[in-house]
């Protein structure tokens, strides 16, 4: 029954997310509201992390599988992109690689600068 209760809590939070999405006219999906609420509940210990951890970890583990139907759906939208598929594919490949590299390198750079600063501070002390 452990899993049932955990899954129930997760679905309840998801539902609150859906209600918020209906009430707030912003292009923010129910899942993001739910994520923020879940995080808040765990930080305030209203919902301790261990009371959702097992079912939650299972859902996260099989998350890749949940994207299969959307990917298969490309067979329908293919007609709409067939005219511009080449530039589209080029844009997707270039931007995805560039964004990944820039984001990763910038984050890493700031982290190492912070680390150096901290080391310097420790030495001064």
């Amino acid at each position, binding site marked *: 029954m452990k899993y049932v209760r955990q899954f129930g809590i997760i679905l309840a939070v998801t539902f609150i997310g859906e209600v918020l999405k209906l009430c707030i006219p912003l292009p*923010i999906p129910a899942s993001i509201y739910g994520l923020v609420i879940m995080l808040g509940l765990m930080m305030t210990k209203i919902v301790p992390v261990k009371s959702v951890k097992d079912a939650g*970890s299972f859902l996260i583990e099989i998350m890749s599988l949940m994207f299969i139907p959307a990917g298969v759906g490309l067979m329908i939208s293919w007609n709409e992109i067939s005219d511009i598929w080449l530039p589209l594919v080029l844009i997707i*490949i270039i931007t995805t690689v560039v964004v990944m590299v820039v984001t990763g390198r910038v984050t890493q750079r700031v982290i190492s600068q912070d680390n150096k600063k901290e080391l310097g501070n420790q030495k001064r002390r």
Partner: protein
Amino acid sequence: MKEIISNSLFFGVGISLLGYEIGLLLKKKWKLAIFNPLLISIIFVIGMLSVFDIGYETYEEGAKYLSYLLTPATVCLAIPLYEQMELLKQHKKAIFIGIISGVLTSLVSVLLLCALFQFTHEQYVTLLPKSITTAIGMGVSKELGGIVTITVAVIIITGVLGNMIAETVCKVFRITHPVAKGIAIGTSAHAVGTAKALEMGEIEGAMSSLSIAVSGLLTVIGASIFTNFM
């Protein structure tokens, strides 16, 4: 045969799992990025549907139960995020500078490439939200007057591509810090990339989860400004 498949609620999920399993086997045998289980399963299912002449609607009738779990699973991304809260606080400056630079890079590179390929304004705003999670991206595209179905297709392809190349890109461009890896994957390839980040490690997964939400929200603001540039 077709009749049975059309009436079966379990065919869609079953064939998806089978495709994923084949992908895992191929990946184990040849450790190449192209044998990405998600990509293999998508191709396998499309192939099977075409061979047996089964429509997407019939497949989706059963497979929708897989997508059904996506919203609660995304809510659960709060768990790794909570567990890495200390690390998040420690590196908050690097994380936010990283995500902001990624979002700007995405918008600028889409603008430049669309100008290069002489795309129309409609096609341009369709592509602007390409790096963020589907649900937010659809809203942005609709709001700016884009073609929502193409936005969804582009977002999915971006995610699958990011999922495929994440490990290679991190290695080649020497992105070694787990926080930097996670932020890079989540900002460039949203939830589909995050699925890969979660496989790479707990820290990578948590940081990638955070990036989905933050980059998604920043793109809502950024795209509404960038729509005026072309």
